[in-house]
């Protein structure tokens, strides 16, 4: 079959690779109908996150039709149209039982790659480095889905593919970010980053009862989507003197009640902090650019909640003292997709959550390398590039 493979830093190529096979009794094989780029892919494509090997198939946000199931699969069957969250979970360990799905104990066959850094292994991810299990990704014609009963979610009739696709990663991540904020009536939520995850976080915050949502970014097309599709007020950080002041004024001097970081380790910024981070990153002295996260910490009201969705490694100059002195709550995780998917599918079926506007650009799988370049550089207002194999 054809698949998009990582061949080196910033080197993606479509190759012919063997088809996936059923390996374990709870596996299924999916024929991929649609998959999409995600911002977090960029972190390993350009080498900030290690343990990729040349030839790895990538892609972790996808949906498709079940082609084959293993002998122990009970709930889904051949022919089902399903969406699959990016994290592979067993459903049986303590973490899965407590709905902390991205912390699953039993889906990383290479725990020794994570233990030195994290102390403990976490769940495997499709197409996202060998430290996260080395599973072949879904920018391909077929993909093997372990634990199909837990991880395949049938899509209701009437919800088209473009809507269901983003329930694999962007929507559950954004929704979890808003869920972490414990939104109360009257709350104002600020969201940094108007990419796929940020836009979903904005919509989710409204679904969960936020009074107002303020979105921060610099790209005019993304700010426009935040305003027109997601209903947020916007701040262009490249055009205001101080994001902190702007947020303070918009919230009667209190600061936002909750701040969601949907930017992550490759933040852009202006000012000396950004330059510091950039230099250290280039020298590989630390992995992160923390501009957005630091702003979120400073802007949040006292006693407020910081919800971190951005993917990070290690950073300098992390204002832990600000968090402590302001008595903030920090909640963060990789997406616990399986927890949120049932209600997200419900919202989608009722027309309350339609992420299809994220699919700004379509490509065939063969054009995927070009698509990723466009996605990275945000050319032509690209928010997400969607592939049909």
């Amino acid at each position, binding site marked *: 079959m054809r698949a998009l*493979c990582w061949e080196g830093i910033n080197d993606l190529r479509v190759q012919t690779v063997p088809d996936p096979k059923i390996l374990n*009794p709870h596996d299924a094989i999916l024929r991929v109908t649609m998959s999409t780029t995600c911002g977090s892919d960029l972190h390993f494509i350009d080498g900030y996150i290690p343990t990729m090997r040349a030839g790895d198939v990538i892609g972790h946000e996808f949906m498709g039709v079940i082609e084959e199931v293993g002998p122990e699969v009970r709930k889904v069957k051949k022919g089902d149209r399903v969406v699959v969250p990016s994290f592979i979970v067993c459903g049986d360990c303590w973490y899965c039982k407590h709905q902390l799905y991205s912390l699953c104990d*039993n889906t990383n*066959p290479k725990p020794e790659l994570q233990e030195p850094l994290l102390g403990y292994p976490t769940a495997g991810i499709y197409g996202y480095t060998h430290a996260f*299990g080395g599973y072949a990704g879904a920018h391909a014609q077929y993909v093997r889905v372990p*634990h199909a009963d837990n991880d395949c979610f049938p899509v209701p009739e009437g919800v088209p593919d473009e809507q269901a696709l983003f329930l694999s990663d962007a929507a559950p991540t954004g929704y979890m970010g808003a869920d972490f904020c414990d939104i109360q009536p009257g709350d104002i939520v600020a969201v940094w980053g108007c990419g796929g995850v940020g836009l979903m976080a904005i919509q989710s915050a409204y679904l969960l009862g936020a009074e107002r949502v303020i979105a921060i970014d610099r790209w005019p097309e993304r700010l426009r989507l935040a305003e027109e599709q997601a209903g947020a007020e916007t701040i262009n950080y490249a055009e205001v003197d101080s994001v902190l002041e702007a947020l303070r004024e918009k919230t009667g001097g209190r600061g936002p009640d909750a701040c969601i970081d949907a930017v992550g380790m490759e933040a852009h910024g202006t000012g000396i902090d950004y330059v510091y981070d950039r230099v250290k990153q280039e020298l590989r002295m630390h992995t992160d650019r923390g501009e957005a996260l630091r702003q979120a910490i400073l802007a949040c009201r006292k006693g407020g909640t910081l919800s971190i969705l951005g993917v990070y490694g290690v950073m300098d100059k992390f204002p832990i003292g600000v968090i402590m002195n302001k008595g903030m709550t920090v909640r963060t995780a990789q997406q616990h997709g399986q927890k949120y998917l049932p209600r997200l599918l419900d919202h989608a079926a009722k027309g309350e959550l339609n992420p299809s506007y994220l699919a700004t650009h379509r490509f065939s799988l063969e054009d995927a390398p070009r698509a990723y370049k466009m996605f990275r550089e945000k050319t032509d207002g690209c928010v997400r590039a969607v592939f049909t194999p």
Partner: protein
Amino acid sequence: MERGLGWFSVGLGLAEVAAPGLLARSLGMENRTEVVRLCGLRELCTGIGLLAQRGPGKPAPWLWSRVGGDALDLTLLLSALTPDNPKRRNAEVAVALVAGVTIVDMAAAKRASEKQREAAGPSADPGEIQRSLTILRSAEELYELWRDPQTMRRIMADFAEVTPPNGDGRMHWRLNAPLGRRLEWDSQVVEERPGEMVRWRSSDGGDLPMEGTVQFRTAPGDRGTEAKLHVHFDPPGGAFGGAAAKLMGVAPDMIAGKALRRFKALAETGEVPTTYPQPAARADKDQARSTSERR
């Protein structure tokens, strides 16, 4: 003693850095002023390193570095013992002093190295491993699973081929070691208490004597059972367990950790997670047959 030497290094280092000219002149080595300053920097670093280390045996590398520094100093000073050096007497005294300090340093460094080895404990001997994991099943279920004939084969699959026990309860192990060698041995259960523990030992005459125990204890709250795996390898030629790692080509604690994780996955989900083989644009053993079957 170690701290004393640390302060001594700092003091000497400061003197050499602050007043290298004065020192050099007093030894008749005026043309070596810069060298003295550099020695001072080295002494300062060593001294700070020594003072900063806590814990049994931790200063050892810094003490050995002092010994190295003493050797350098002696060499430098010996070069000042030329007949035409008016300050030759001073240089001789300095040589004697440094020689004396060297002896003290060596004794301290040796002692610290021994303390370091002792403090590392059983886990420093890589032939002896212990790992624990908490598994969301009862102790009785885990005991039954451990004694299931297929289990050892499945959880050791990364490490060795284990043939399930035949009539007399003995399991056969086969490990492909580096350099084309193959290690084989038999093992059998020598002690067990249902729901609590199992102990097994390799039979005489095998290539790699080993002994293992697994213990099960209820974990607090709703967490299930704490499983503790203890394995000991005793390679022929004995001495350090590092020989076991060399013989097998893989670290024993990796084996134990992996085996326990696989046992946990088997117990909780009924399968062991795997990504072998799977699609990739690589010609290596991770790949399935390279024909596209489903086009």
